[in-house]
């Protein structure tokens, strides 16, 4: 039965064309891969393959440039918004976006993040928030939840010692230079579709010169969290979503 279904004419879903055959280095079940797919799909759907200049962060997504076949600039840790600022200002007709994790965007790069947003740079920022430093082995991030255990807060984040989880997107939503701030996830097919819609909106805003758009994707880091991919999704729904509720914070 399935043999006559498997025919190019019946294909409804496959790996995006812009995503190459390099096997991704991410851990099994990592949210990065899903977001990468969405970006690759949207760039092609918008016909922007030749007009895209992407800016990669330092963190797990440092090698994003190995997977999506557009031009990439790999920025120093936290500096992607500054890099993207210049790329966009010098190439105003291009799609310029940054792809950053929570440590990159909300710790070491906080100044660059806030000032690029405040200038209303016509860029999009995809922000992966999994509450942990994945690449360096699971240390505390600015977005680590209270009582959440990491390698550098092995007894759980103590707010007296480490301060509070930083809701950076809430701050960014206050800035007049920002036109879109939304918090999404990719743990279910429905969530993936919603996130895709919002990333597309962010890219459209950037091309239309409406100011900066930030799409936060509340994500899992099953290696850092020391849970299976499925259990990570459950943990995220139970613990991350109350702290980082999904939905649009700003959409004008």
């Amino acid at each position, binding site marked *: 039965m399935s043999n006559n*279904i498997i025919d190019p004419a019946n294909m409804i879903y496959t790996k995006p064309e812009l995503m190459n055959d390099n096997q991704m280095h991410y851990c099994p079940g990592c949210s990065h891969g899903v977001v990468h797919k969405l970006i690759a799909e949207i760039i092609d759907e918008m016909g922007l393959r030749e007009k895209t200049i992407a800016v990669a962060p330092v963190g797990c997504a440092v090698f994003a440039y190995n997977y999506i076949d557009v031009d990439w600039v790999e920025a120093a840790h936290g500096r992607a918004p500054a890099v993207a600022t210049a790329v966009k200002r010098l190439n105003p007709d291009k799609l310029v976006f940054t792809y950053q994790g929570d440590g990159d965007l909300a710790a070491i790069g906080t100044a660059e993040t806030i000032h690029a947003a405040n200038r209303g740079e016509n860029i999009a920022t995809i922000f992966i928030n999994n509450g942990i430093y994945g690449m360096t082995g699971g240390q505390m991030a600015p977005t680590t939840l209270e009582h959440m255990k990491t390698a550098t807060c092995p007894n759980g984040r103590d707010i007296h010692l480490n301060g509070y989880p930083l809701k950076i997107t809430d701050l960014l939503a206050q800035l007049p230079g920002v036109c879109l701030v939304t918090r999404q996830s990719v743990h279910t097919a429905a969530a993936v579709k919603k996130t895709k819609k919002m990333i597309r909106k962010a890219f459209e805003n950037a091309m239309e010169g409406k100011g900066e758009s930030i799409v936060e994707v509340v994500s899992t880091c099953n290696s850092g969290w020391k849970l299976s991919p499925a259990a990570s999704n459950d943990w995220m729904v139970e613990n991350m979503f109350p702290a980082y509720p999904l939905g649009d914070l700003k959409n004008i």
Partner: protein
Amino acid sequence: MAKVKGAVVVNVERCKGCNLCVIACPSDVLELQPREVNDKGYHYAYMKNPEECIGCANCGYVCPDACITVYRKKID
């Protein structure tokens, strides 16, 4: 009555056996290979109950490694 039938093809070598497609499937079509592994040693996903597939592509959407291709056909 027309019925929608689906089929899933897994790129075995890209699959990391994360199991998220198995969970996302509403029809209990997929499973990780209980014994066989790919070149990287992962128990990859396969269609355990191919007849049940409705081609909803939920498995594809949530797959982090872009290893799933989904087909769908109306069958009279």
